[in-house]
Protein backbone atom coordinates (compact mmCIF):
# COMPACT_ATOMS: atom_id res chain seq x y z
CA UNK A 1 0.00 0.00 0.00
CA UNK A 2 2.93 2.32 0.78
CA UNK A 3 4.27 1.63 -2.70
CA UNK A 4 0.87 2.34 -4.25
CA UNK A 5 0.60 5.56 -2.27
CA UNK A 6 4.15 6.57 -3.24
CA UNK A 7 3.36 6.02 -6.91
CA UNK A 8 0.25 8.20 -6.65
CA UNK A 9 2.02 10.95 -4.76
CA UNK A 10 4.90 10.93 -7.24
CA UNK A 11 2.39 11.19 -10.06
CA UNK A 12 0.69 14.12 -8.35
CA UNK A 13 4.00 15.84 -7.71
CA UNK A 14 4.92 15.51 -11.37
CA UNK A 15 1.63 17.15 -12.33
CA UNK A 16 1.67 19.90 -9.72
CA UNK A 17 0.71 22.43 -12.37
CA UNK A 18 -2.63 20.63 -12.42
CA UNK A 19 -2.99 21.20 -8.68
CA UNK A 20 -2.32 24.92 -9.13
CA UNK A 21 -4.94 25.08 -11.84
CA UNK A 22 -7.50 23.38 -9.59
CA UNK A 23 -6.63 25.77 -6.76
CA UNK A 24 -7.12 28.78 -9.01
CA UNK A 25 -10.44 27.28 -10.11
CA UNK A 26 -11.54 26.91 -6.48
CA UNK A 27 -10.41 30.41 -5.56
CA UNK A 28 -12.19 31.96 -8.52
CA UNK A 29 -15.32 30.03 -7.57
CA UNK A 30 -15.10 31.61 -4.11
CA UNK A 31 -14.75 35.00 -5.76
CA UNK A 32 -17.82 34.36 -7.91
CA UNK A 33 -19.99 33.23 -4.99
CA UNK A 34 -19.68 36.68 -3.46
CA UNK A 35 -21.07 38.21 -6.64
CA UNK A 36 -24.10 35.98 -6.30
CA UNK A 37 -24.84 37.36 -2.84
CA UNK A 38 -23.72 40.97 -3.16
CA UNK A 39 -21.20 42.96 -1.19
CA UNK A 40 -22.89 42.65 2.20
CA UNK A 41 -20.02 41.75 4.53
CA UNK A 42 -22.21 40.32 7.28
CA UNK A 43 -24.10 37.93 4.98
CA UNK A 44 -20.90 36.89 3.24
CA UNK A 45 -19.34 36.04 6.58
CA UNK A 46 -22.39 34.01 7.53
CA UNK A 47 -22.30 31.97 4.34
CA UNK A 48 -18.52 31.71 4.12
CA UNK A 49 -18.37 28.08 5.30
CA UNK A 50 -20.91 27.01 2.72
CA UNK A 51 -19.10 28.83 -0.06
CA UNK A 52 -15.76 27.34 0.92
CA UNK A 53 -17.09 23.78 0.90
CA UNK A 54 -18.94 24.26 -2.38
CA UNK A 55 -15.73 25.62 -3.90
CA UNK A 56 -13.85 22.64 -2.53
CA UNK A 57 -16.51 20.22 -3.78
CA UNK A 58 -16.50 21.66 -7.30
CA UNK A 59 -12.70 21.57 -7.41
CA UNK A 60 -12.64 18.05 -6.02
CA UNK A 61 -14.49 16.65 -9.03
CA UNK A 62 -11.63 17.93 -11.21
CA UNK A 63 -9.01 16.32 -8.97
CA UNK A 64 -10.88 13.04 -8.66
CA UNK A 65 -11.60 12.72 -12.36
CA UNK A 66 -7.94 13.39 -13.09
CA UNK A 67 -6.76 10.67 -10.71
CA UNK A 68 -7.85 7.83 -12.98
CA UNK A 69 -7.16 9.65 -16.21
CA UNK A 70 -3.51 8.58 -16.19
CA UNK A 71 -4.49 4.95 -15.66
CA UNK A 72 -6.66 4.98 -18.74
CA UNK A 73 -3.83 6.03 -21.04
CA UNK A 74 -2.05 2.95 -22.43
CA UNK A 75 -4.44 0.83 -20.33
CA UNK A 76 -2.17 1.26 -17.31
CA UNK A 77 -4.93 0.13 -14.94
CA UNK A 78 -4.88 -3.36 -16.43
CA UNK A 79 -1.13 -3.46 -15.85
CA UNK A 80 -1.62 -2.41 -12.25
CA UNK A 81 -4.21 -5.10 -11.72
CA UNK A 82 -1.82 -7.75 -13.07
CA UNK A 83 0.57 -6.99 -10.21
CA UNK A 84 0.45 -9.54 -7.40
CA UNK A 85 -1.39 -7.18 -5.05
CA UNK A 86 -4.98 -6.92 -3.94
CA UNK A 87 -6.92 -4.31 -5.96
CA UNK A 88 -7.95 -2.93 -2.59
CA UNK A 89 -4.36 -1.78 -2.08
CA UNK A 90 -4.52 0.18 -5.30
CA UNK A 91 -7.81 1.71 -4.22
CA UNK A 92 -6.57 2.80 -0.81
CA UNK A 93 -3.35 4.15 -2.33
CA UNK A 94 -5.35 6.28 -4.72
CA UNK A 95 -7.96 7.31 -2.18
CA UNK A 96 -5.34 8.42 0.34
CA UNK A 97 -3.42 10.32 -2.33
CA UNK A 98 -6.62 12.05 -3.45
CA UNK A 99 -7.48 12.80 0.14
CA UNK A 100 -4.07 14.39 0.80
CA UNK A 101 -4.43 16.52 -2.29
CA UNK A 102 -7.90 17.66 -1.25
CA UNK A 103 -6.67 18.44 2.28
CA UNK A 104 -3.94 20.57 0.76
CA UNK A 105 -6.50 22.27 -1.48
CA UNK A 106 -8.73 22.90 1.52
CA UNK A 107 -5.89 24.43 3.50
CA UNK A 108 -5.03 26.60 0.52
CA UNK A 109 -8.61 27.82 0.17
CA UNK A 110 -8.91 28.86 3.85
CA UNK A 111 -6.82 32.06 3.48
CA UNK A 112 -8.82 32.96 0.37
CA UNK A 113 -12.02 32.57 2.37
CA UNK A 114 -10.63 34.59 5.29
CA UNK A 115 -9.62 37.45 3.02
CA UNK A 116 -12.70 37.53 0.80
CA UNK A 117 -15.36 36.97 3.45
CA UNK A 118 -13.63 38.26 6.58
CA UNK A 119 -14.27 34.84 8.13
CA UNK A 120 -11.25 34.46 10.34
CA UNK A 121 -10.90 32.14 13.30
CA UNK A 122 -8.20 31.33 15.82
CA UNK A 123 -9.32 27.71 16.22
CA UNK A 124 -7.03 26.55 13.44
CA UNK A 125 -6.41 22.98 14.71
CA UNK A 126 -10.16 22.37 14.84
CA UNK A 127 -10.64 23.83 11.38
CA UNK A 128 -7.82 21.65 10.08
CA UNK A 129 -9.48 18.58 11.58
CA UNK A 130 -12.80 19.45 9.95
CA UNK A 131 -11.15 19.92 6.57
CA UNK A 132 -9.36 16.59 6.95
CA UNK A 133 -12.54 14.72 7.91
CA UNK A 134 -14.70 16.45 5.31
CA UNK A 135 -12.32 15.85 2.42
CA UNK A 136 -11.98 12.23 3.57
CA UNK A 137 -15.73 11.95 3.04
CA UNK A 138 -15.33 13.29 -0.50
CA UNK A 139 -12.35 11.22 -1.54
CA UNK A 140 -13.50 7.71 -0.54
CA UNK A 141 -16.66 7.52 -2.68
CA UNK A 142 -15.16 9.97 -5.17
CA UNK A 143 -12.22 7.68 -5.93
CA UNK A 144 -14.54 4.70 -6.42
CA UNK A 145 -16.85 6.62 -8.74
CA UNK A 146 -13.87 8.07 -10.62
CA UNK A 147 -12.73 4.50 -11.27
CA UNK A 148 -16.08 3.80 -12.95
CA UNK A 149 -16.68 7.05 -14.75
CA UNK A 150 -13.15 7.35 -16.13
CA UNK A 151 -13.92 4.36 -18.34
CA UNK A 152 -17.08 5.69 -19.94
CA UNK A 153 -18.05 8.46 -22.29
CA UNK A 154 -19.03 11.84 -20.87
CA UNK A 155 -17.21 11.23 -17.59
CA UNK A 156 -17.16 14.95 -16.78
CA UNK A 157 -20.92 14.89 -16.31
CA UNK A 158 -21.31 11.49 -14.76
CA UNK A 159 -18.91 11.85 -11.83
CA UNK A 160 -20.63 14.86 -10.22
CA UNK A 161 -24.02 13.35 -11.05
CA UNK A 162 -23.19 10.28 -8.97
CA UNK A 163 -21.08 11.94 -6.31
CA UNK A 164 -23.06 15.05 -5.37
CA UNK A 165 -26.22 13.41 -3.99
CA UNK A 166 -24.16 10.84 -2.13
CA UNK A 167 -21.96 13.23 -0.20
CA UNK A 168 -24.84 15.42 1.02
CA UNK A 169 -24.37 14.31 4.67
CA UNK A 170 -20.60 14.91 4.56
CA UNK A 171 -21.11 18.32 2.95
CA UNK A 172 -23.80 19.28 5.44
CA UNK A 173 -21.72 18.23 8.42
CA UNK A 174 -18.57 19.94 7.10
CA UNK A 175 -20.36 23.20 6.36
CA UNK A 176 -22.08 23.14 9.74
CA UNK A 177 -18.84 22.39 11.58
CA UNK A 178 -16.88 25.05 9.71
CA UNK A 179 -19.49 27.69 10.34
CA UNK A 180 -19.73 26.67 14.00
CA UNK A 181 -15.98 27.17 14.26
CA UNK A 182 -16.06 30.53 12.48
CA UNK A 183 -19.23 31.97 14.00
CA UNK A 184 -19.08 30.33 17.44
CA UNK A 185 -20.89 27.37 18.94
CA UNK A 186 -23.29 28.52 21.65
CA UNK A 187 -25.36 25.31 21.65
CA UNK A 188 -22.45 22.90 21.85
CA UNK A 189 -23.39 21.12 18.61
CA UNK A 190 -19.81 20.62 17.47
CA UNK A 191 -19.25 17.12 18.82
CA UNK A 192 -22.51 15.69 17.42
CA UNK A 193 -21.68 16.85 13.89
CA UNK A 194 -18.11 15.66 14.31
CA UNK A 195 -19.43 12.20 15.17
CA UNK A 196 -21.72 12.16 12.15
CA UNK A 197 -18.88 13.14 9.83
CA UNK A 198 -16.57 10.53 11.36
CA UNK A 199 -19.25 7.87 10.98
CA UNK A 200 -19.77 8.81 7.32
CA UNK A 201 -16.02 8.55 6.71
CA UNK A 202 -15.74 5.21 8.48
CA UNK A 203 -18.67 3.71 6.55
CA UNK A 204 -17.53 4.85 3.13
CA UNK A 205 -13.81 4.17 3.58
CA UNK A 206 -14.62 0.55 4.46
CA UNK A 207 -17.56 -0.01 2.06
CA UNK A 208 -15.85 1.50 -0.99
CA UNK A 209 -12.70 -0.52 -0.29
CA UNK A 210 -14.79 -3.68 -0.12
CA UNK A 211 -16.57 -2.95 -3.39
CA UNK A 212 -13.60 -1.67 -5.40
CA UNK A 213 -12.29 -5.02 -6.61
CA UNK A 214 -15.69 -5.77 -8.17
CA UNK A 215 -15.54 -2.45 -10.02
CA UNK A 216 -12.16 -3.01 -11.68
CA UNK A 217 -12.39 -6.75 -12.28
CA UNK A 218 -12.39 -7.83 -15.91
Amino acid at each position, binding site marked *: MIAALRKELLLQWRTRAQFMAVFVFGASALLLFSFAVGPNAEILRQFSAGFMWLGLLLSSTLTLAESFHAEMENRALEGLLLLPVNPRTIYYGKAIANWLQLVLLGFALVPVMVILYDAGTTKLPQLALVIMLGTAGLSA*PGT*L*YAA*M*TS*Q*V*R*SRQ*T*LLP*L*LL*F*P*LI*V*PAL*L*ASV*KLTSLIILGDPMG*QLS*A*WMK*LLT*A*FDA*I*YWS*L*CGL*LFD*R*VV*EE
Partner: protein
Amino acid sequence: MSTTKSLFVRRYVPGLVLLAIGAYFGFVVALAEFNNINLGFGLATGLQAAIAAIAAVAGTISFLIVDDVETSAKGPNILLVAGIICFLIGSYIGLFVAPPEQHMGEVQRIMYVHVPTAWNALLAMTVAFASAVVFLFKSDWKWDAVMEGSIEVGVVFAFLLCAQGSIWAKPTWNVWWDWDPRLTTTAVLLFAFLGILALRRFVEDPVKRGIWSSVATIIAYVDVPIVYFSVKWWNSLHQTQSSPGTVSKQFYLPLRANAIGILFLMTAFIMLRARISALRLKQELAPPPLVEAQLGEVV
Protein backbone atom coordinates in the same frame (compact mmCIF):
# COMPACT_ATOMS: atom_id res chain seq x y z
CA MET B 1 -49.31 -27.36 -22.92
CA SER B 2 -49.86 -29.31 -19.73
CA THR B 3 -46.21 -28.99 -18.69
CA THR B 4 -46.22 -25.21 -19.10
CA LYS B 5 -49.46 -25.05 -17.19
CA SER B 6 -48.18 -27.14 -14.28
CA LEU B 7 -44.97 -25.09 -14.22
CA PHE B 8 -47.03 -21.94 -14.02
CA VAL B 9 -49.18 -23.37 -11.24
CA ARG B 10 -46.20 -24.59 -9.24
CA ARG B 11 -44.54 -21.22 -9.55
CA TYR B 12 -47.34 -18.96 -8.59
CA VAL B 13 -49.38 -21.07 -6.18
CA PRO B 14 -47.58 -20.00 -2.97
CA GLY B 15 -47.91 -16.35 -3.96
CA LEU B 16 -51.55 -16.76 -4.95
CA VAL B 17 -52.37 -18.53 -1.67
CA LEU B 18 -50.74 -15.72 0.29
CA LEU B 19 -52.61 -13.10 -1.74
CA ALA B 20 -55.88 -14.97 -1.12
CA ILE B 21 -55.23 -15.04 2.63
CA GLY B 22 -54.43 -11.33 2.51
CA ALA B 23 -57.58 -10.58 0.53
CA TYR B 24 -59.75 -12.61 2.90
CA PHE B 25 -58.48 -10.90 6.02
CA GLY B 26 -58.56 -7.50 4.35
CA PHE B 27 -62.20 -8.06 3.45
CA VAL B 28 -63.01 -9.35 6.94
CA VAL B 29 -61.37 -6.34 8.60
CA ALA B 30 -63.35 -3.96 6.40
CA LEU B 31 -66.55 -5.86 7.14
CA ALA B 32 -65.91 -5.79 10.87
CA GLU B 33 -65.32 -2.06 10.80
CA PHE B 34 -68.36 -1.07 8.80
CA ASN B 35 -70.96 -3.67 9.81
CA ASN B 36 -69.66 -5.16 13.05
CA ILE B 37 -69.63 -8.65 11.56
CA ASN B 38 -66.64 -10.68 12.70
CA LEU B 39 -65.62 -13.57 10.46
CA GLY B 40 -61.95 -13.46 11.50
CA PHE B 41 -61.84 -16.69 13.56
CA GLY B 42 -62.20 -14.65 16.74
CA LEU B 43 -58.88 -12.87 16.22
CA ALA B 44 -58.49 -9.22 17.19
CA THR B 45 -58.99 -6.79 14.29
CA GLY B 46 -55.48 -5.41 14.68
CA LEU B 47 -54.05 -8.90 14.32
CA GLN B 48 -56.27 -9.59 11.30
CA ALA B 49 -55.11 -6.39 9.63
CA ALA B 50 -51.50 -7.34 10.35
CA ILE B 51 -52.05 -10.82 8.84
CA ALA B 52 -53.63 -9.24 5.75
CA ALA B 53 -50.73 -6.82 5.29
CA ILE B 54 -48.02 -9.43 5.89
CA ALA B 55 -49.70 -11.95 3.56
CA ALA B 56 -50.02 -9.33 0.82
CA VAL B 57 -46.38 -8.24 1.12
CA ALA B 58 -45.12 -11.84 1.31
CA GLY B 59 -47.26 -12.84 -1.68
CA THR B 60 -45.90 -9.95 -3.72
CA ILE B 61 -42.31 -10.75 -2.80
CA SER B 62 -42.83 -14.40 -3.72
CA PHE B 63 -44.19 -13.30 -7.11
CA LEU B 64 -41.09 -11.18 -7.62
CA ILE B 65 -38.78 -14.05 -6.71
CA VAL B 66 -40.41 -16.81 -8.77
CA ASP B 67 -41.22 -14.69 -11.80
CA ASP B 68 -39.25 -15.54 -14.88
CA VAL B 69 -38.91 -12.05 -16.30
CA GLU B 70 -37.93 -13.23 -19.75
CA THR B 71 -40.64 -15.61 -20.87
CA SER B 72 -43.92 -14.75 -19.22
CA ALA B 73 -45.81 -11.65 -18.11
CA LYS B 74 -48.49 -13.60 -16.23
CA GLY B 75 -47.21 -12.74 -12.74
CA PRO B 76 -47.23 -8.98 -13.24
CA ASN B 77 -50.58 -9.13 -14.98
CA ILE B 78 -52.20 -10.85 -11.98
CA LEU B 79 -50.71 -8.22 -9.67
CA LEU B 80 -51.77 -5.43 -11.99
CA VAL B 81 -55.43 -6.50 -11.78
CA ALA B 82 -55.27 -7.02 -8.00
CA GLY B 83 -53.57 -3.64 -7.59
CA ILE B 84 -56.14 -1.75 -9.64
CA ILE B 85 -58.99 -3.34 -7.62
CA CYS B 86 -57.40 -2.45 -4.25
CA PHE B 87 -56.51 1.04 -5.41
CA LEU B 88 -60.05 1.70 -6.66
CA ILE B 89 -61.60 0.47 -3.39
CA GLY B 90 -59.13 2.51 -1.28
CA SER B 91 -59.59 5.64 -3.36
CA TYR B 92 -63.38 5.30 -3.26
CA ILE B 93 -63.43 5.03 0.54
CA GLY B 94 -60.82 7.79 0.84
CA LEU B 95 -62.60 10.20 -1.45
CA PHE B 96 -66.29 9.55 -0.72
CA VAL B 97 -66.75 7.58 2.51
CA ALA B 98 -64.14 8.91 4.93
CA PRO B 99 -65.06 12.26 6.51
CA PRO B 100 -62.86 15.32 5.88
CA GLU B 101 -60.20 15.93 8.49
CA GLN B 102 -60.98 18.49 11.19
CA HIS B 103 -58.02 20.87 10.77
CA MET B 104 -56.82 20.32 7.23
CA GLY B 105 -60.17 19.64 5.57
CA GLU B 106 -60.37 18.07 2.14
CA VAL B 107 -56.66 18.61 1.43
CA GLN B 108 -55.85 15.87 3.87
CA ARG B 109 -57.31 13.28 1.48
CA ILE B 110 -54.08 13.40 -0.52
CA MET B 111 -52.56 11.49 2.39
CA TYR B 112 -54.36 8.38 1.16
CA VAL B 113 -52.03 8.29 -1.81
CA HIS B 114 -49.10 10.25 -0.38
CA VAL B 115 -48.28 7.95 2.54
CA PRO B 116 -48.63 4.72 0.50
CA THR B 117 -46.45 6.25 -2.22
CA ALA B 118 -43.80 7.04 0.38
CA TRP B 119 -43.80 3.50 1.77
CA ASN B 120 -43.67 1.97 -1.68
CA ALA B 121 -40.97 4.32 -2.97
CA LEU B 122 -38.74 3.23 -0.13
CA LEU B 123 -39.71 -0.38 -0.78
CA ALA B 124 -38.78 -0.04 -4.48
CA MET B 125 -35.35 1.29 -3.49
CA THR B 126 -35.02 -1.61 -1.06
CA VAL B 127 -35.84 -4.06 -3.84
CA ALA B 128 -33.15 -2.35 -5.94
CA PHE B 129 -30.65 -2.72 -3.10
CA ALA B 130 -31.53 -6.39 -2.54
CA SER B 131 -31.28 -7.13 -6.28
CA ALA B 132 -27.92 -5.36 -6.40
CA VAL B 133 -26.58 -7.53 -3.58
CA VAL B 134 -27.95 -10.73 -5.15
CA PHE B 135 -26.54 -9.76 -8.55
CA LEU B 136 -23.08 -9.07 -7.13
CA PHE B 137 -22.96 -12.46 -5.42
CA LYS B 138 -24.80 -14.68 -7.89
CA SER B 139 -24.32 -12.89 -11.23
CA ASP B 140 -27.83 -13.91 -12.24
CA TRP B 141 -28.97 -11.59 -15.03
CA LYS B 142 -32.55 -11.67 -13.82
CA TRP B 143 -31.57 -9.55 -10.85
CA ASP B 144 -29.77 -7.07 -13.05
CA ALA B 145 -33.05 -6.61 -14.88
CA VAL B 146 -35.05 -6.38 -11.64
CA MET B 147 -32.56 -3.83 -10.34
CA GLU B 148 -32.99 -1.64 -13.42
CA GLY B 149 -36.77 -1.95 -13.14
CA SER B 150 -36.90 -1.14 -9.45
CA ILE B 151 -34.52 1.82 -9.72
CA GLU B 152 -36.62 3.29 -12.50
CA VAL B 153 -39.93 2.66 -10.69
CA GLY B 154 -38.35 3.99 -7.47
CA VAL B 155 -37.32 7.18 -9.26
CA VAL B 156 -40.84 7.65 -10.62
CA PHE B 157 -42.34 7.08 -7.17
CA ALA B 158 -39.87 9.42 -5.49
CA PHE B 159 -40.76 12.08 -8.04
CA LEU B 160 -44.48 11.50 -7.47
CA LEU B 161 -43.84 11.73 -3.75
CA CYS B 162 -42.17 15.12 -4.09
CA ALA B 163 -44.97 16.33 -6.36
CA GLN B 164 -47.76 15.16 -4.03
CA GLY B 165 -45.87 16.63 -1.07
CA SER B 166 -45.68 20.01 -2.80
CA ILE B 167 -49.38 19.93 -3.68
CA TRP B 168 -50.18 19.20 -0.04
CA ALA B 169 -47.67 21.65 1.44
CA LYS B 170 -48.82 24.72 -0.50
CA PRO B 171 -52.29 25.01 1.13
CA THR B 172 -51.13 23.62 4.48
CA TRP B 173 -47.75 25.25 5.15
CA ASN B 174 -48.09 27.88 2.39
CA VAL B 175 -44.81 26.79 0.76
CA TRP B 176 -44.07 24.40 -2.10
CA TRP B 177 -40.94 23.07 -0.58
CA ASP B 178 -39.61 22.66 2.88
CA TRP B 179 -36.18 21.48 4.05
CA ASP B 180 -37.53 18.74 6.21
CA PRO B 181 -35.66 15.43 6.67
CA ARG B 182 -38.08 13.17 4.83
CA LEU B 183 -38.64 15.55 1.95
CA THR B 184 -34.94 16.30 1.56
CA THR B 185 -33.97 12.64 1.86
CA THR B 186 -36.46 11.79 -0.88
CA ALA B 187 -35.02 14.47 -3.13
CA VAL B 188 -31.46 13.33 -2.47
CA LEU B 189 -32.47 9.73 -3.13
CA LEU B 190 -34.21 10.77 -6.34
CA PHE B 191 -31.04 12.39 -7.65
CA ALA B 192 -28.79 9.58 -6.44
CA PHE B 193 -30.86 6.97 -8.28
CA LEU B 194 -31.20 9.19 -11.38
CA GLY B 195 -27.40 9.24 -11.43
CA ILE B 196 -27.33 5.44 -11.40
CA LEU B 197 -29.80 5.32 -14.31
CA ALA B 198 -27.53 7.73 -16.19
CA LEU B 199 -24.56 5.49 -15.42
CA ARG B 200 -26.45 2.52 -16.86
CA ARG B 201 -27.10 4.47 -20.06
CA PHE B 202 -23.47 5.35 -20.58
CA VAL B 203 -21.87 1.94 -19.99
CA GLU B 204 -22.04 -0.26 -23.07
CA ASP B 205 -20.56 -3.47 -21.69
CA PRO B 206 -23.46 -5.34 -20.00
CA VAL B 207 -21.23 -7.04 -17.40
CA LYS B 208 -19.64 -3.78 -16.31
CA ARG B 209 -23.01 -2.04 -16.41
CA GLY B 210 -24.52 -4.62 -14.09
CA ILE B 211 -21.66 -4.67 -11.61
CA TRP B 212 -21.10 -0.93 -11.53
CA SER B 213 -24.73 -0.05 -11.09
CA SER B 214 -25.01 -2.69 -8.33
CA VAL B 215 -22.07 -1.11 -6.54
CA ALA B 216 -23.54 2.37 -6.99
CA THR B 217 -26.95 1.16 -5.78
CA ILE B 218 -25.48 -0.35 -2.63
CA ILE B 219 -23.49 2.81 -1.91
CA ALA B 220 -26.50 5.06 -2.50
CA TYR B 221 -28.82 2.90 -0.39
CA VAL B 222 -26.44 2.88 2.57
CA ASP B 223 -26.52 6.68 2.36
CA VAL B 224 -30.27 6.89 3.04
CA PRO B 225 -30.19 6.73 6.88
CA ILE B 226 -27.16 9.02 7.03
CA VAL B 227 -28.83 11.64 4.86
CA TYR B 228 -31.98 11.33 6.92
CA PHE B 229 -30.27 11.91 10.25
CA SER B 230 -28.03 14.68 9.01
CA VAL B 231 -30.97 16.63 7.59
CA LYS B 232 -33.00 15.91 10.70
CA TRP B 233 -30.36 17.58 12.86
CA TRP B 234 -30.06 20.37 10.37
CA ASN B 235 -33.73 21.34 10.25
CA SER B 236 -37.08 19.80 11.11
CA LEU B 237 -40.73 20.75 10.68
CA HIS B 238 -42.54 17.77 9.12
CA GLN B 239 -45.53 16.19 10.86
CA THR B 240 -44.56 13.29 13.05
CA GLN B 241 -45.84 9.97 11.78
CA SER B 242 -49.21 8.88 13.08
CA SER B 243 -49.68 5.33 14.31
CA PRO B 244 -52.95 3.43 13.74
CA GLY B 245 -53.68 3.91 17.45
CA THR B 246 -53.99 7.67 17.08
CA VAL B 247 -55.88 7.63 13.80
CA SER B 248 -59.57 6.85 13.45
CA LYS B 249 -60.37 3.71 11.46
CA GLN B 250 -62.22 5.64 8.81
CA PHE B 251 -58.89 7.22 8.02
CA TYR B 252 -56.64 4.21 8.02
CA LEU B 253 -58.81 1.80 6.09
CA PRO B 254 -58.45 3.65 2.74
CA LEU B 255 -54.80 4.24 3.58
CA ARG B 256 -54.15 0.52 3.96
CA ALA B 257 -56.18 -0.47 0.91
CA ASN B 258 -54.25 2.04 -1.18
CA ALA B 259 -50.94 0.96 0.31
CA ILE B 260 -51.57 -2.64 -0.71
CA GLY B 261 -52.97 -1.58 -4.10
CA ILE B 262 -49.95 0.60 -4.86
CA LEU B 263 -47.68 -2.20 -3.63
CA PHE B 264 -49.21 -4.57 -6.20
CA LEU B 265 -49.05 -1.97 -8.95
CA MET B 266 -45.46 -1.07 -8.12
CA THR B 267 -44.34 -4.69 -8.11
CA ALA B 268 -46.13 -5.28 -11.40
CA PHE B 269 -44.40 -2.22 -12.91
CA ILE B 270 -41.03 -3.43 -11.64
CA MET B 271 -41.60 -6.87 -13.14
CA LEU B 272 -42.79 -5.51 -16.48
CA ARG B 273 -39.90 -3.06 -16.62
CA ALA B 274 -37.50 -5.87 -15.68
CA ARG B 275 -38.96 -7.88 -18.54
CA ILE B 276 -38.06 -5.09 -20.97
CA SER B 277 -34.51 -4.95 -19.59
CA ALA B 278 -34.12 -8.71 -19.74
CA LEU B 279 -35.29 -8.87 -23.35
CA ARG B 280 -33.08 -5.94 -24.32
CA LEU B 281 -30.13 -7.64 -22.68
CA LYS B 282 -30.88 -10.87 -24.51
CA GLN B 283 -30.79 -8.96 -27.76
CA GLU B 284 -27.55 -7.28 -26.75
CA LEU B 285 -25.85 -10.55 -25.87
CA ALA B 286 -27.17 -12.41 -28.92
CA PRO B 287 -24.64 -12.96 -31.69
CA PRO B 288 -25.03 -10.53 -34.59
CA PRO B 289 -27.09 -11.91 -37.48
CA LEU B 290 -25.12 -13.52 -40.26
CA VAL B 291 -24.05 -11.15 -42.98
CA GLU B 292 -24.76 -13.73 -45.68
CA ALA B 293 -28.34 -14.09 -44.57
CA GLN B 294 -28.81 -10.34 -44.77
CA LEU B 295 -27.24 -10.27 -48.21
CA GLY B 296 -29.55 -13.07 -49.32
CA GLU B 297 -32.54 -11.03 -48.23
CA VAL B 298 -31.44 -8.02 -50.21
CA VAL B 299 -30.93 -10.12 -53.31
